[in-house]
């Protein structure tokens, strides 16, 4: 396929920032890649696409869907065309995320201790205390190095003018980083030679940086602290990621039943007896980590773990209670936090957000419902949302009833049409909407962000929902150097 014919079929949508094309011209940073791509025949691209699927399957990069007691292996859809971001754009993103994480982390420390931000009237007390993710149990708990958000995945989107907006701060147990790593190793199988010839920055350092941070926060005077990764088990859809990270870091992958607390210390049960654990990177939600304190029905956690944590005998990553900072109703206050704590102007934009508690906002939102999206403050994964542009009047009326019952549980935002990038779909190159989730690591030596991230794609034409549970896929993300 020639260069021009490839492009002829590529029709961008109006009012959408296309990352590859501007007025029918290829942007500079896509040029090198696209010239290589135009040398490849469509049949060859189909073969490459099949190769990628086969590789994911045989490497077991799959998640299992259980039905009728039998497991069906599924792969997360992967698009072979990488998404490319320039070094300048990345520097902007990096600075913006660092600033944001720094402020959010101070906010968590403040909100669980002195609450200056409430006393100074920047954030209303009612907002915090009505947040179901505010953990009273965390009040006045000293966490190692005052770090709460060791690992965060910030979701970014681009508006029609190309500027980056933060959509969500995932500060609890963000997942997807293994796909950032796997997608890269898929790209060099599918497009040999292109990663070096495009001068793409490596993402390989992620596990090493994470391990370095985990080791550093151990409280025990020991040259080799024991770090474990706590997983809910093989039935969790992110289990593949847990095993990958444990393997890459060389730490023990444990389940709740492998751990026991004795005298406020955490031990794991080994063939050689009990061995003390210093740091737990948990991929189990707050609610399930300790049945004595939180959900008493949970068998995923460890009885007494929270007590050991409060005593400082074990570090938990991320800190419990972070949900108060990534609550969607707290989100509109983040720019204020940045000004209040850091005395800086926010680098990244936030999406205008209407609290449904405010009757005026409620009225405004439902008057303009076709341009709005309403979300639950406490949910993620694209669940429980109402996209005003595509909902029927009935759906809107039913949703409104819900909102009016518990206004605190909902926020509304204007629909932002995400930027689009080229994807290989139905044997041709077509634009699809994407977001970007870089992963920030916060350790005693500061915040580090591996140059890359997870690009999620809404594979259905015109769709703006990128969540993997709702027909989303992913692609490799190239940050040029």
């Amino acid at each position, binding site marked *: 396929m020639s260069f021009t014919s490839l492009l002829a079929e590529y029709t961008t949508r109006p009012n959408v920032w296309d990352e590859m094309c501007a007025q029918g011209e290829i942007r500079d940073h896509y040029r090198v890649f696209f010239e290589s791509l135009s040398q490849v025949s469509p049949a060859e691209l189909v073969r490459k696409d099949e190769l990628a699927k086969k590789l994911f*399957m*045989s*490497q*077991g990069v799959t998640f299992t869907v259980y039905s009728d007691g*039998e*497991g069906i*292996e599924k792969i997360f859809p992967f698009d072979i065309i990488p998404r490319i971001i320039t070094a300048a754009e990345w520097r902007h993103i990096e600075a913006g995320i660092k600033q944001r994480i720094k402020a959010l982390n101070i906010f968590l420390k403040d909100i669980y201790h002195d609450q200056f931000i409430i006393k100074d009237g920047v954030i209303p007390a009612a907002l915090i205390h009505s947040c179901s993710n505010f953990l009273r149990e965390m009040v006045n708990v000293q966490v190692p190095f005052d770090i709460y958000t060791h690992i965060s995945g910030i979701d970014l989107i681009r508006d029609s003018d190309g500027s980056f907006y933060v959509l969500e701060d995932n500060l609890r147990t963000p997942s997807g980083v293994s796909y950032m790593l796997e997608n890269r190793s898929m790209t060099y199988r599918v497009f040999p030679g292109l990663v070096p010839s495009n001068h793409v920055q490596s993402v390989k350092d992620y596990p090493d940086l994470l391990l370095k941070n985990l080791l550093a926060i151990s409280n025990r005077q020991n040259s080799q602290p024991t770090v474990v990764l706590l997983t809910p*088990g*093989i039935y969790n859809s992110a*289990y593949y990621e847990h*095993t*990958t990270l*444990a*393997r890459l870091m060389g*730490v*023990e*992958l*444990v*389940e709740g*039943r*492998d751990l026991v607390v004795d005298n406020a210390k955490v031990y*794991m*049960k*080994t*063939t*050689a*007896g009990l061995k003390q654990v210093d740091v737990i990177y948990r991929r189990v939600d707050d609610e399930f980590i300790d049945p004595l304190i939180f959900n008493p029905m949970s068998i995923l956690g460890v009885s007494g773990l929270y007590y050991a944590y409060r005593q400082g005998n074990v570090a938990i990553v991320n800190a419990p209670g972070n949900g108060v900072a990534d609550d969607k109703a707290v989100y509109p206050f983040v720019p204020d936090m940045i000004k209040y704590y850091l005395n800086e102007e926010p680098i990244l934009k936030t999406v205008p957000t209407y609290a449904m508690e405010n009757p005026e906002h409620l009225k405004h939102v439902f008057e303009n419902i076709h341009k709005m999206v309403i979300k639950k403050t406490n949910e993620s994964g694209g669940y429980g949302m109402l996209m005003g542009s595509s909902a029927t009047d009935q759906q809107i009326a039913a949703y409104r009833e819900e909102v009016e019952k518990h206004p605190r549980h909902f926020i509304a935002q204007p629909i932002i049409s995400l930027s689009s990038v080229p994807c290989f779909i139905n044997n041709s190159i077509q634009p699809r909407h994407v977001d970007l989730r870089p992963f920030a690591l916060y350790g005693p030596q500061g915040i580090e962000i591996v140059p890359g991230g997870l690009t999620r794609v809404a594979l259905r034409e015109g769709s703006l929902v990128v969540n993997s549970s709702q027909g989303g896929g992913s692609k490799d993300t190239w940050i040029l150097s």
Partner: protein
Amino acid sequence: MLSRVADAVFWMARYMERTDNILRALRTNYIASQDEIQHFNWKLWVDGLGANTKPSAQQYTYREALYELMLNRENDTSVLTYISRARENARSVQDYVTKEVWQCMNDYYHLIRDKRTEQLIMHGDPVTAFDDLLRESTLFYGTVDITMNRGEGYTFLNLGKYTERLLRALDILELKIKEMENHESEAVQWKFLLYALSGYEFHTKFYRNALSTENVIHQIFMNLQFPHSVLYCLLQVERYFKRLDVISLPENYKEMEFLLGRAISNLRYGSPEKSTTSTIKPFIDNTRTEIKALSQKLAILYFGYS
């Protein structure tokens, strides 16, 4: 290493070894049933290899038997179930087995669930299916050998492997003896038994005479050059177990060491003087009971995590 992980590695190895042994036995049986043995008793094998509680059919054709023993998802003792379980175990210890080993098991799993495999077994040439599957199995052993470090994981893997191989040899021997009671010619049966255990060529070289019960029994129980013999496997179990000395709690180690030593002595010095099919049966039972007790003790002392 974590007790749960040790347990999972041990059972992963047991399921893999079981699959390999059963595939080889079925392959041999299938070939025998197509050629030398006119009325092959498949029911005996379906009942003997299975732990099915529901009453089985009166008779099995070879396709029905192969379906039951290889592909039936409902059957707890089909090859498909074993491979799925081995993979489930491997999945839960992916940070312990190497990435290569995991990928190998994963390919194996996809192969047994492949439509083509099913087609070969149910309608085509089952030998091709056996060979394809056994190639994956062999790859697994090679991959373990080349990529896994010789730490605790490897030790538990080998404990599982040799324990299982030993029990399988006893089971297959017992089934063959049952077949003989149904008046099949002994020499033919012994030949297929040795084929199933990959020991026929070795037998002709080592014993240099026509197949006799005495020699076959000796090979299966005592021959240290034969990697499927009971004594060979038990000594391997002992060899790997001794590596646990450094990490074990002393009292646990002593208890296991005693049981193992006793089992080896009983095997060496307690076998019947004159081996016939009838004298050997109680000996098979005793050995099996002893090995199972040993395996249970290992589970209590090393895998106890609940």
